[in-house]
């Protein structure tokens, strides 16, 4: 009895998502067909590339790591009612800090250097989250603006570091030299390469979920998001909650950067943030800020992303198509909310 109820609950939660996904694919399918492509082949590629080959799957997991972290960097402050649009800035500054640490202390043994590199990344990102937090706390400046603007600052910062003393002369592109081998994340699989960062990412997901749903601070974060004024009247230091959530989010964003450095690139490269921010936002919004849903949505989006480039390669369908599918999914998920409201 009870169990079936639980299942029913889950079904209720998942169904709208499925419908939204179907609707989005249908809508985009019309478009793709009009462009004169084979819709089914396209979707086949998009959905199954991740599962055809071991490499495909590993690559999906590798995408999943930064995406899930970027999504959390968005949803954690969202719990307190704040919008962090600065994930990529936090990723880049985190990556920068991690790289510098990894190069400067290249000689340290792995047991020290790996944690050091990751820690540096977390701190760098946290700093980049602290600035908007402080500007909000001290001057009440809208965090949406400051987080976005700091992204653009971070781009130039990366360019500076990549063309400065740490630059890699061989690459005709803003890139630093590699960090010390000892700073590279241990591999779970060597070929195709799966670095241990994924375990860390999953751990972070679990911790964030536990902290927000079970702890007192988590409760206060939720209360702050639900109504800051009331939370404040009843003793919760909401402005502190805002700062803390942005700093933690920054740390998570920074970690995503550090993992890219220590696990994949082994160096700072201009453009390494790619479109992680926007995908992170989409994931967070599709998950409606629910930290439990985030990892699942993130995995799904990773599948789409990996499938997308395969589709572009094999069918020559522009990748943007998939981006639009993702945006459509978001819109339809939002609409499904309304439908539910109307029905109940």
């Amino acid at each position, binding site marked *: 009895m009870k169990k079936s109820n639980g299942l029913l609950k889950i079904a209720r939660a998942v169904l709208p998502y499925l419908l939204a996904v179907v609707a989005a694919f249908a809508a985009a399918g019309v478009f793709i067909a009009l*462009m004169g492509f084979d819709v089914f082949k396209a979707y086949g590629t998009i959905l199954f590339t991740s599962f055809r080959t071991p490499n495909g799957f590993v690559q999906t997991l590798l995408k999943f790591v930064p995406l899930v972290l970027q999504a959390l960097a968005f949803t954690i402050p969202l719990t307190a009612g704040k*919008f962090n649009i600065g994930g990529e800035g936090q990723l880049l500054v985190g990556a920068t800090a991690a790289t510098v640490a990894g190069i400067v202390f290249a000689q340290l043994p792995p047991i020290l250097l790996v944690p050091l590199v990751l820690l540096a990344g977390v701190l760098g990102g946290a700093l980049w989250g602290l600035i908007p937090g402080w*500007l909000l706390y001290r*001057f*009440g*400046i*809208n965090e*949406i*603006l*400051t987080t*976005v*603007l*700091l*992204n*653009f*600052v971070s781009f*130039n*910062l990366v*360019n*500076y570091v990549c*063309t*400065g003393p740490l630059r890699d002369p061989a690459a005709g592109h803003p890139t630093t030299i590699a960090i010390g081998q000892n700073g590279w994340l241990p591999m779970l699989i060597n070929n195709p390469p799966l670095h241990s960062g994924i375990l860390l990412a999953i751990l972070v997901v679990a911790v964030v979920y536990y902290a927000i749903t079970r702890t007192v601070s988590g409760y206060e974060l939720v209360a702050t998001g639900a109504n800051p004024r009331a939370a404040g009247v009843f003793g919760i230091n909401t402005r502190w909650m805002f700062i803390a959530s942005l700093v933690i989010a920054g740390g998570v964003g920074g970690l995503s950067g550090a993992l890219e450095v220590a696990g994949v690139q082994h160096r700072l490269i201009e453009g390494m943030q790619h479109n992680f921010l*926007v995908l992170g*936002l*989409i994931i967070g*919004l599709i998950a409606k800020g629910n930290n439990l849903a985030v990892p699942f949505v993130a995995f799904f989006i990773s599948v789409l992303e990996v499938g997308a480039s395969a589709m572009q390669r094999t069918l020559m369908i*522009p990748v*943007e*198509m998939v*981006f*639009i599918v*993702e*945006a*459509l999914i*978001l*819109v339809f998920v*939002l*609409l499904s*909310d*309304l439908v539910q409201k109307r029905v109940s």
Partner: protein
Amino acid sequence: MNEFWLTIISYAKLILLTIVPFVLAGQGTMLGGRTGIFNVAQEGIMLVGASVGFLVSFLTGSNALGMLAAMLAGGLFGLALAYFTTHLRMDQFVIGLALFFIGVGLSTLLPKIIIGVTLTPPLIPTLKDIPIPGLSQIPVIGEIFFKQNVLVYFSILLSIGLWWYLYRTQAGMELRAVGENPQAADSLGVNVPRARYWTAILGGMLMGLAGAYLPMVYTGTFTENMVKGRGWLAIALTFFGGWKPDTILYGALFFALIEVLAYRVQVLGTAIPYQFLLMLPYLATILVMMFSFRKARVPAFLGQNYDREKRAL
């Protein structure tokens, strides 16, 4: 005329050239905000405007049509925002972000589909300066203000017009009332949804035009992601412009000044690494907000949705 004046003139012209996208997008944001609609999709809408504006004028060979198309595209985004927020009452930021994503995607998708692979860059003729007969003869002033392209004139006249409308007419007063307290306006027979729709749509159109400005004046072509954060800067500008047409214009001038000076410093040579000069517009924006943000009088209902039968929770 001596060297000095020539330099002054050319920089003044550059500044006016630079304010346009900020003014257009800023006024568009302000307009929607005046009825409580907070559009955060500027970046996406401007990209679509740039993309569509370029494509249409490339295909038809007419910049006018291009700008029109850009405004239509932007208007559609404004309409969508108004519909989802005013009609379906969905969260403005979420919808805004969704529209931003769609805009980014479409802007690069469209040229790929429509133009495809060409081995010479698709180019459109950029807007020519239109000297105002008579006025343009005035020394210095004439050179600076009356030898500009049509959009420079338009953005300045637009700012003045909006100011007059909002603060010197009853219609404008009622519009502001909607953004301050829609229920009060509604209870006095003002059509709140209509106000929200048209301001959101017109706002979107202005953003679309702001985007089209880049290929039409600066580059003659569309390139991926060419708005490069100007949309977000426009929002910031609107805040420290205090959501007023006149101050937004001044704010834009300040922006442009920073940008132009940042480049000048680099050209004149300096020890500061250029990356830091390129950060200046963003840092200056934040700096200005530190002192202006609290004071900025934001429309009281900004970002909220009005439902006649729903009491504010």
